[in-house]
């Protein structure tokens, strides 16, 4: 049952977690970038070992963001945005080490609670989803897209970005292996050779999350790193677990909020930590202390963002829909090994499922041990000069793109095209997460939609097929109505 556990498996988790923490600790570098850069390494590792590395990177990347958030007041990753609010004031009054350790313990709690939810919830959801026909599968994707767009910072742009992602994913031939007619569409004449299968997923992702991030930094002149003095880990007030007394509800609530946000497709860690933080503040007896160095604020933010890690894997492993951009990259790892994730995955690949759960568990424990006992050394990572890191990352991006289809140079150009697109897209206020989810789900959405119509010949089938379809429509309408209400409320407030 646990044959996959080997010294290599364990060292990949620990190594991945360590590299993830390093990426998370450096502002401008994210867990997603870590996974994108290291993805080609999983080629020769096999699925379980490859996932061990990537999940370690994911957990480490999300957790590492708290280091600069607390010590510099700059979130290392977007998911640590609210950690700065109370973590940095604590560091400024000489409680840097205490703040870091509070964040580390909260991260562990968030990670483990979300892992438990993943373990219990994903198989049940997958069992349920097995019964879905093409109609329900299409509606699930439609629901995922509406939720994702509705929770974007700009709903209209979010929806547009999602549909643009779908449109670009349709470039190429209508795949015969999916029941299509094999004919080309949306491609300029003469480019059939390169665009036969459309743009490959991984070069697109690597471009959007690797190259675009570096172009962003280059545009800003690659901001100077920080000196060792900026990141001194002060310990005026020693850390003690007693700080968690009275915080159990906060930990569990924030972890579950993070997990729930993770389950929603396309919603990132920043939403998880912001929601957890605002809830902790609302329910706190001393809300006035939040933002001034209140440990409960760090606890909420960090247990919330680590809660995301398990949550985001729930829709991926049960429905084949990634919960966030990092889990979208994990699809790449499965694709590399020729495995399709979806409702049948857990039942058909129990070994891989167990390996993922064990890897997540070990990654969380490794993250805790490494960061708790070596936080002073990890703090120094913030000072690593970007002029050494960025060129190496760019080089790794090239390797990732080139090797993804066993040596196709067009994939490297795809990386460049989508790197530039990612940079331009943020300027045009397009939303990258909905774009990615649309891009990933577009081809499946097409097959489910067209095949449903070919089989039933009536549009009403999308409503009348089953009670599940009706429930899904209610959820779709609910999510659109909810988002319109939220957007109107925020407009009247402004």
């Amino acid at each position, binding site marked *: 049952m646990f044959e996959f556990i080997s010294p290599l498996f364990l060292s990949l988790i620990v190594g991945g977690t360590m590299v993830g923490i390093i990426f998370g600790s450096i502002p401008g570098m994210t867990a997603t970038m870590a996974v994108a850069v290291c993805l*080609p*390494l999983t*080629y*020769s590792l096999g699925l379980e070992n490859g996932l061990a590395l990537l999940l370690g990177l994911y957990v480490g990347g999300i957790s590492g963001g708290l280091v600069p958030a607390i010590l510099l007041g700059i979130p290392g990753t977007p998911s640590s945005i609210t950690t700065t609010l109370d973590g940095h004031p604590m560091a400024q009054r000489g409680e840097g080490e205490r703040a870091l350790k509070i964040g580390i313990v909260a991260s562990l709690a968030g990670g483990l609670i979300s892992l438990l939810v993943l373990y219990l919830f994903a198989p049940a959801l997958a069992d349920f989803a097995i019964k879905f026909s093409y109609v329900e599968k299409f509606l699930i994707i439609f629901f995922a897209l509406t939720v994702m767009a509705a929770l974007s910072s700009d709903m*209209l*742009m979010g*929806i*547009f970005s999602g*549909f*643009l992602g*779908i*449109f670009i994913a*349709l470039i190429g*031939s*209508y795949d015969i292996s999916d029941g*299509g*007619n*094999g*004919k*080309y*569409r*949306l491609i300029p004449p003469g480019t059939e050779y390169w665009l036969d299968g459309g743009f490959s997923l991984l070069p697109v992702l690597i471009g959007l999350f690797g*190259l675009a991030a*570096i*172009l962003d930094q*280059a*545009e*800003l*002149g*690659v901001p100077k790193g920080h000196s060792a003095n900026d990141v001194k880990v002060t310990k005026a007030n020693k850390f003690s677990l007693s700080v968690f007394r009275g915080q159990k509800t906060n930990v569990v609530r924030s972890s579950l909020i993070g997990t729930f946000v993770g389950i929603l497709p396309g919603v990132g860690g920043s939403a998880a930590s912001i929601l957890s933080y605002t809830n902790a503040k609302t329910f706190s007896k001393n809300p006035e202390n939040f933002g001034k160095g209140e440990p409960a604020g760090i606890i909420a933010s960090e247990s919330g963002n680590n809660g995301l890690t398990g949550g985001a894997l729930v829709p991926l492993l049960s429905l084949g829909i990634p919960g966030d951009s990092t889990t979208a990259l994990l699809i790449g790892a499965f694709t590399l090994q020729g495995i399709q994730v979806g409702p049948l995955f857990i039942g058909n690949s129990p070994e891989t499922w167990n390996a993922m759960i064990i890897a997540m568990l070990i990654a969380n424990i490794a993250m805790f041990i490494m960061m708790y006992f070596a936080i002073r050394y990890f703090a120094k990572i913030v000072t690593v*000069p970007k*002029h*050494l890191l*960025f*060129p*190496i990352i*760019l*080089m*790794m991006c*090239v*390797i990732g793109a*080139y*090797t993804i289809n*066993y*040596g196709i*140079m067009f994939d*490297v*150009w795809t990386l*460049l095209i989508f790197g*530039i697109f990612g940079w331009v897209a943020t300027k045009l206020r397009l939303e990258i997460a909905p774009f990615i989810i649309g891009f990933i789900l577009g081809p499946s*959405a*097409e097959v489910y*939609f*067209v095949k449903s*119509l*070919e089989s039933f*010949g*009536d*549009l*009403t089938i999308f409503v009348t097929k089953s009670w599940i379809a009706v429930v899904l429509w209610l959820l779709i309408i609910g999510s659109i109505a909810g988002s319109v209400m939220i957007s109107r409320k925020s407009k009247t407030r402004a």
Partner: protein
Amino acid sequence: MNDLTKVSIDFEQSHLVFPRLIAVVLAILLIAIIIRDHKRILNALPYWKGVFQNMDKMRFLGALGVTLLYFSLMVPVGNIWPNTGSGFLICSIPFVLIIGLLFMHERPMRSVISLSIVSVVGPVSVWWLFTYPFFLTLP
């Protein structure tokens, strides 16, 4: 009413059904965006001028240009010694060095030496890792 919802898909044309539908939705959304953001769209030119004025042109355009050159040269150089990954190796060393120098703020000898070491050790290690233990062909 029943006839209105009836759809018959010709298999020969089935590859166009979904792209057309998505194109229509995109067009509607684009119109909505134009109506809502027409002021912003009309100010696009000054906005982009501002972006280019405020950017670090040397680093941004330099990085883009060097990357373009790196991608363009990799295959022709690799074709000189086919199937050895030498295109990647030979192009990556100067690429890492130039991008590193471009992104540096001050260039004291110590930093340049450490960058030079990284620009040789990095690509050589990655090339070795992918060529031997992983058996993956690089350009």
